[in-house]
């Protein structure tokens, strides 16, 4: 089988903004436009030379059914360039990169733009089933009298809307919402409230330090925001300046009001944002004289029971390390998406604890990930988790930090709603 190296030429992201704030008027495709333009222009690649655009997106905005295609055309790519949208919940962005990886590795493509975009502010309210059926009946009925007759069946409760976001974050099989799955892990593996809040506080302070220290300048592309597109946004809105463990401890549990430990403070926030990576074959690197940041080594996706989805990274990391014959120590930097502090802490425990590792089907424990190597610029708790984008956002942040540290291997991993885990391994070419 033909086989060639796949290069991560460069990755960029928009600022990540808590939903309802500065990015609320910027629909999903618009988040990709400045990223695509920036990646192509910085690397001097023309609009005809892109083979494909793949974007992760979970909100599926009704007016933009294929977000990736809309974004590609808006950004001025030639209409002959193919584009499609993928959905693997929280790992949609990583799924996009993985597909690009396979296509380039298999020598079918040379230049692919892959990433994710999500505007959670714009997730709709949905009419209830009863109301929708009523609409259909009114539509179908002929003549005024029949229409009125159909309308008489209307009852005010029909109007109470379903919040698409809330529904999307609840597993349809185990009927737990994502927060409740985190509570389950915290309960089962004894993760205390203090541990979670300490971890959350770390995320905020690291993110703030990175943001203020200009660490994100290389990865963030400024974006025009507002209904009039007359403001320029270039910093994340989410990390809290005045966060302390004590203040976090004062928050009430959100998902299990009485006995729970998971609060909005130690969970990721609902956030808008986008991220995009330029991936290229070695031929394309030569042709366009590119200077790639990293080589994409491998990816893996694994599954587990939906109610323990937070442990997804454990098996995914296990698989990718095994397949590439690497030890945990070989990895110089980790980005594990922080959906919930409880969930990340459980994954760390599972990597370290032989018994827990076996419980989740691993052959052995891998050891400890030191905090100096983990989410060193904060994570989802501070920066937020725009679902369709996070899978590629952590790859973007990982690649930039790995280059800065001159480390070799970097590993991005995240848990996936519905009970899956994803991991992606890159090798820095600037070490």
């Amino acid at each position, binding site marked *: 089988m033909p086989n060639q190296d796949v290069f991560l030429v460069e990755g960029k992201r928009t600022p990540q903004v808590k939903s309802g704030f500065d990015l609320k008027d910027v629909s999903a495709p618009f988040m990709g436009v400045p990223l695509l333009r920036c990646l192509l222009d*910085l690397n001097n690649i023309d609009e005809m030379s892109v083979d494909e655009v793949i974007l992760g997106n979970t909100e599926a905005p009704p007016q933009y059914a294929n977000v990736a295609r809309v974004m590609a055309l808006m950004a001025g790519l030639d209409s002959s360039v193919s584009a499609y949208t993928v959905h693997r919940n929280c790992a949609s962005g990583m799924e996009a990169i993985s597909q690009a990886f396979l296509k380039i590795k298999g020598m079918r493509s040379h230049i692919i733009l892959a990433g994710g975009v999500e505007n959670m502010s714009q997730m709709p309210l949905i009419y209830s089933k009863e109301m929708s059926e009523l609409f259909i009946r009114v539509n179908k009925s002929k003549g005024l009298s029949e229409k009125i007759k159909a309308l008489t069946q209307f009852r005010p409760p029909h109007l109470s809307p379903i919040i698409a976001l809330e529904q999307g974050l609840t597993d349809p099989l185990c009927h737990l919402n994502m927060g409740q799955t985190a509570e389950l892990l915290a309960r089962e593996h004894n993760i205390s409230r203090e541990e979670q809040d300490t971890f959350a506080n770390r995320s905020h302070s690291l993110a703030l330090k990175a943001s203020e220290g200009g660490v994100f300048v290389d990865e963030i592309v400024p974006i025009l925001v507002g209904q009039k597109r007359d403001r*320029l946004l270039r910093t994340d809105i989410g990390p809290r300046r005045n966060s302390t463990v004590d203040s976090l401890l004062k928050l009430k549990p959100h998902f299990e009001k009485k006995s729970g430990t998971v609060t909005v403070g130690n969970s990721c926030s609902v956030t808008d944002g986008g991220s995009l990576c330029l991936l290229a074959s070695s031929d394309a690197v030569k042709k366009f004289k590119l200077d790639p940041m990293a080589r994409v080594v491998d990816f893996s996706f694994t599954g587990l029971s939906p109610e323990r989805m937070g442990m997804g990274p454990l098996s995914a990391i296990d698989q990718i390390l095994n397949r590439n014959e690497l030890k945990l120590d070989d990895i110089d930097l980790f980005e594990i998406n922080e959906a919930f502090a409880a969930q990340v802490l459980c994954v760390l425990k599972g990597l370290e604890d032989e018994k827990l590792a076996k419980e989740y089907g691993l052959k052995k424990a891998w050891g400890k990930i030191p905090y100096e190597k983990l989410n060193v610029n904060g994570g989802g708790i501070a920066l937020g988790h725009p679902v369709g984008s996070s899978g590629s956002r952590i790859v973007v942040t990982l690649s930039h930090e790995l280059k800065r540290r001159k480390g070799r291997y970097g590993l991005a991993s995240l848990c996936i709603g519905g009970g899956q885990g994803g991991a992606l391994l890159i090798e820095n070419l600037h070490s």
Partner: protein
Amino acid sequence: MDFQKISFVVTEGIAEVGLGFKCDKSLPLLDKETLKELDEALNLVKEREQEGSVKGVLFFSHHKRAFLAGVDIQLISDCKTESEGAEGAEKGQSLFNKIEDLSIPSICCVHGLCLGGGLELALSCDRIIASDSQSTFLGLPEVKLGLIPGFGGTFRLPRKIGLPKALDAILSGKNIYSKKAKRMGLVEGIFPKERVVTMARVLLDEAPKSKSFKESLENLASDNFLARKIVFQKARETVLRKTQGFYQAPLKILDVIESGFSKGRSSYLAMEAQAFGELCSSGQSQNLQHLFFLNEASKKVPKNYDSGKKPKELNRGAVIGAGVMGAGICWLMAKNKMYPHLVDLTFDALEAGIKQSSHYFLSQVKRKRMSYDELHILQSSITTQTNMKALGQCNLIVESVVEDLEVKKKLLQDLEDNVSDDAILASNTSSLGISEMAKNLKKPERFAGLHFFNPVPKMPLVEIVTHEKTSKETILSLHNWCLRGKKTPIIVKDGPGFLVNRILAPYLNEAGHLMAEGVSPRLIEDACLNYGMPMGPIRLLDEIGQNVASKVAFILQEKLGERLKPSSLMKDWEASDFQGRKNSKGFYEYDEKGAEIDFSEAFLKVLPSPAKPMNEIEIQMRIFLPMINEAAFILEEKIVEHASTVDLALIYGIGFPPFRGGLLKYADQEGLERILEALIDFSKNVNQERYAPSPLLKKLVADKKKFYD
């Protein structure tokens, strides 16, 4: 019968008349031959109608984007006398009467533009249908040429769509796009362009729809004496407000429609033809027709620069400097899908530029020329950055940074290292030398000036400023790009103030000198406004900013000598903090909406007293004669080749009154000899240097020639 200009076939009892057949011009026109052939075709239809072999007639066009662009303007401008004009109109009228008088049904299929005589033809058919294409629009733009629609348009349009809507369309001359035309009842139906003719055949078999209840109500409302009187009165008021009474055509149109409203067709049309004759032989209409030809000529590839090569398509742009002008140019690029880069030193500066551009788009949204979605797409296509990276794909880079020669020179050199080899570089300077900037460039041939006017969306003129080494290809590519952006480009050689600002200088200077002599600013403003200028010189200074204007004025004086000496007041203004509207310290005070209230006290205080009386004509001569004189210097120095370029530039660059046909056309009409005498007189009695007549002017007078010879 052998037709050359139109096609004529009869299929299944329907006579199909195709216009724009084998069209050798860019747009199909009603020229002499077409009119003749149409007449013959109609005679054929009439014959067969009597035989009973034709049961309907259908008009359409073979042309891809036009039904008919109206009567050939050349034909109109050839009418030198009233009677020639009236006769020409009558010929057209009787032709269209023939269509109207057919006893078989007639239908007109419009796709693409349908203007003037084209719409008048359509109106003489029983029914009009149109394509739903965005390039389909109808209208009677004659008023813009100082004319009345002379082929029965003013008779038939009010009867088709009602008086108020018809008056609006005829008096404004605006285009009516197909959807709106359907709404207002001008066209009966709109269909995809491929289906229009098929649908016309179907419709010819059906009886026309009777008027809807709403239409009947509307007719009732406007079809009585009192309502009509009010409508005409309102229309007259609007016309006077919009034209300041400078234009005779709209008033004439109103007179004809009002006094002929209850008359029958033949006597009405006789009035219309008479009015057409009067207007088309008037000086004003000829000036406007002159402008029309200038405008058409500016769209053609300039001969001197035609290298035979195709101009490069400039499709990716960048603007360096996000000030008001930079943002304006960036807006233009974004609007034309060039995915521009906007570069400035700080994000604050970039954000200010972005705001400006958004503001321009928003005003289009407010006027319903654009949707919010389009605003989002176009505005979001702007990339902002604080460095010179990532410009490799751009093929037009315009710098619009601070007016400082050294800064610009260094920037251009930096740019050369950051852009692709075949990118064109341009400077939007208004006062610095293009040749000087080109000096240190590695590839000066791809560099030129590209001088826009503020505000970019409103001002159509762009000066393409060349220096000795600018290549023909560069000039042509920029020229072509300006046209694609719906701007009017003129090509000028490098020289202080280029063309427009150099002629504007005496306009502003002389106003200053007059004030320094004690002439009241109100008198000066009124004299200029009454001449037809859109803005008096003092108000214009507020708009430019006194500090900017003074700076430019002194540069011009330094380079061109004492002829362009600014008034003594200029120095004071430069020192004071008069910056016009920018810091709300101008000559005028403005209300919250930005409308002027009156002169500010602070300004009136610095003026000399006692006031010196001066009559309006003398003020106008003091201001406009030095402008004519400066234009003569410009022609002599070959900054531009021809007087027509000067005229076009001033009309589109500073709003010189169009009905005067341009500054030099006006000079020709006034008589150069008189102008020279007046200048000599001023140079003796007012100031020797400022009014010293140019050698070219003297030579023209000696040779008994005109600027336009």
